């Protein structure tokens, strides 16, 4: 136990230092996790000292935030699932943690950037309604999801500076990548051609060369003399009769009818 305590103190020192010492912290965390397992606090059940639980929760929270800062998303995922026990099962006994909602919000954003919308909603459903509409950490991802679904991409773009916590910005880049691809696929269908200048603003690029590389990736034709982006027109969709399917269906009906008659 005394080992754990010293480790915990040095973890706090590393984490709260300016700038935080992420390497030391993650090294300490792996040692601390072993310590937690040995004292049965990683996945607590039964009667445990609540003071110990608070410490264990704090360690895991620091772990989650550290992995976010070092952009280690799978590790964040693991810490988050371990924290679930503390947040849901011991919610009544433990004093609420001020990091709970930021971490939950981060998890929501992570699901959003990975396009796991179903999981996003399942997770959201477990939170009370007033938290969803009032807590800034939760409201942010909820709004982002709503705008994404509607297609109000400019709102998402504008909201990137309004992130309620420093860690949220780490996800913003990948989120912007997702949005850009979404917009691009919309443009391919909705426009025949688009002036280069407008394409830059629509796709939230700052200069034309970024757009040109992006256009190359997506296979767009650039007409530099006219200053236009041309999108390949999809030809008339060919109507094909699904022979295989029709034959299979007819055979099935024949067999079923045979059984009935």
């Amino acid at each position, binding site marked *: 136990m005394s080992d754990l305590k010293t480790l915990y103190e040095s973890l706090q020192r590393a984490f709260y230092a300016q700038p935080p010492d992420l390497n030391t912290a993650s090294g300490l965390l792996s040692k601390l996790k072993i310590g937690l397992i040995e004292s049965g606090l990683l996945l607590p059940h039964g009667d445990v000292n609540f003071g110990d639980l608070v410490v264990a929760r704090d360690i895991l929270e620091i772990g989650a935030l550290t992995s976010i800062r070092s952009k280690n998303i799978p590790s964040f995922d693991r810490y988050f699932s371990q924290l679930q026990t503390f947040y*849901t099962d011991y919610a009544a006994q433990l004093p609420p943690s001020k990091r709970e909602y930021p971490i939950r919000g981060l998890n929501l954003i992570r699901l959003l950037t990975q396009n796991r919308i179903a999981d996003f909603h*399942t997770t959201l459903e477990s939170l009370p*309604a007033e938290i*969803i509409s009032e807590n800034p950490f939760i409201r942010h991802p909820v709004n982002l999801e709503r705008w994404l679904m*509607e*297609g109000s991409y400019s709102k998402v773009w504008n909201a990137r500076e309004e992130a309620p916590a420093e860690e949220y910005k780490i996800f913003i880049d990948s989120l912007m990548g997702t949005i850009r691809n979404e*917009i691009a696929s*919309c443009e391919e269908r909705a426009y025949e051609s688009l002036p280069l200048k407008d394409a830059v603003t629509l796709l939230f690029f700052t200069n034309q060369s970024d757009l040109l590389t992006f256009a190359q990736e997506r296979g767009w034709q650039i007409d530099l003399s006219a200053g236009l982006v041309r999108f390949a027109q999809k030809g008339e969709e060919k109507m094909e009769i699904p022979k295989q399917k*029709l034959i299979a269906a007819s055979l099935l009906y024949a067999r*079923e009818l045979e059984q009935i008659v």
Partner: protein
Amino acid sequence: MADIEMKDDKSKDKKEEVKEEPKPEPLTPAAEIKQNAAQIARAVSTLEPRFTHRVLRSLTALRKKVDEAAIKSAVEGVYTKDSEAKKTLLSWLPATSPGSLEESMEVDSSAKNASEPVPEVEVYLRLLIIYQLLSSKDTYAGALDLAHQTVEKMQAWNRRSMDAIAAKVWFAVMRAYELGGDLADARPLFLAAQRTASLRHDDEAQASLINCLLRSYIAYNLYSQADKLVSKTTFPASASNAQFARYHYYLGRIRAVQLNYTDAHTHLQQAVRRAPPARTAPGFYQTVNKYLVVVELLMGDIPDRGLFRQEVLEKALGAYFDIVKAVRTGSLAQFQTTLQKHKDQFEADKTYSLIVRLRQNVIKTGIRRLSLSYSRISLRDICVKLNLDSEEDAEYIVGKAIRDGVIEGKIVHEKGWMECMTQKNNYGPEVSELFGRRIAFCLNLHNQSVKAMRYPLNAHRKELAAAEGAREREKELAKGIQDGEIDDEDLGGDF
């Protein structure tokens, strides 16, 4: 055709049977319980679960009629001798009034030579007592205690003939937890029982327990756990319709949360179909229909207007009708005001988060209406008509609608308008696919009803006996021919 007719006849028979029972004289609840106890005993002795099922079918109706005195006199009647079981049963009931005591004395004398009843009867009586205790707030704790004891006894006896009653007891246990304590605390108990039930192939208890668990997960909004439970268990196919209806309802809710609206719709529809008629169980019918309406809206369909005119649903679905109107007109402003107005009801129904998701559907409907009525419309007008925040938003939203196939058209950015094209003729392979799906449904229905037909037990014995007789006759005939008693010419006509 023959199949269907047979089925009709059978159901008629059943109805008559049920009707006949109460006809001769309206039974007192106590007498009915006693009769049921006798039925259960018969079921156990003849190994025929049908009688038990019949008793359990009347449980809901009976529950509303009985009072403590009735149960007490029934206990006195069933247990003629003083025994441990009788004492424990009676200890759960308050002291008797003199009136019912007399009645019980009378019963005692009428059935003197009965032996100790089977454990199933005891569990049945316990079940009735639990429900009786659950009917008033003061005795919830008592009900929970009794429920625990009953479960322990049930597990100690471990009798297969008790399965059907056990399933009902599990449901009562869940009710006791729900009303008297914390439903979350019951989960370990249910999970353990579910494992045992599935190992013993105790389908009825398993179905009941899976539903209890789902209910407890969903009550605490733990949809991911509920989903995991569903994927790790198989719901027994032989479960009763009521259990199936519940199961489909819970599945529908889980799928709706996961944005899998097509599945959610199928499950909720199944739940409505399998549920008892609207009048006998209005609560369930209303709840399922609330979800069904929301899910249909989320799928982009508009629910049938007739649904809202049904007597049972008219009042309960009022708020949902307003939402449907808002979505149909595609007006965001109307949608927002309706949402605010009925927010409390939606939150109580736990449909709020689903309804919030409808926002994008409202926008889509709005755009589709515009695209149908205009051949060219400026983005600014779209913005004004749909109450969007900016022209920029309108452009992205229209772009997305075109990509998602909501409308056919294109945006001319330089001029700032949207040009709509005529809707393409939608008569492609999808039609035959849809047709195929419907045919498959009908065929499945037919096959299921063939499977569901019941034949009287031992009916084939008679046929066997008849065949035996025919063979016997044939032998005699052959013998006769051998003996030369019958001439070939006599037989000529027959052959």
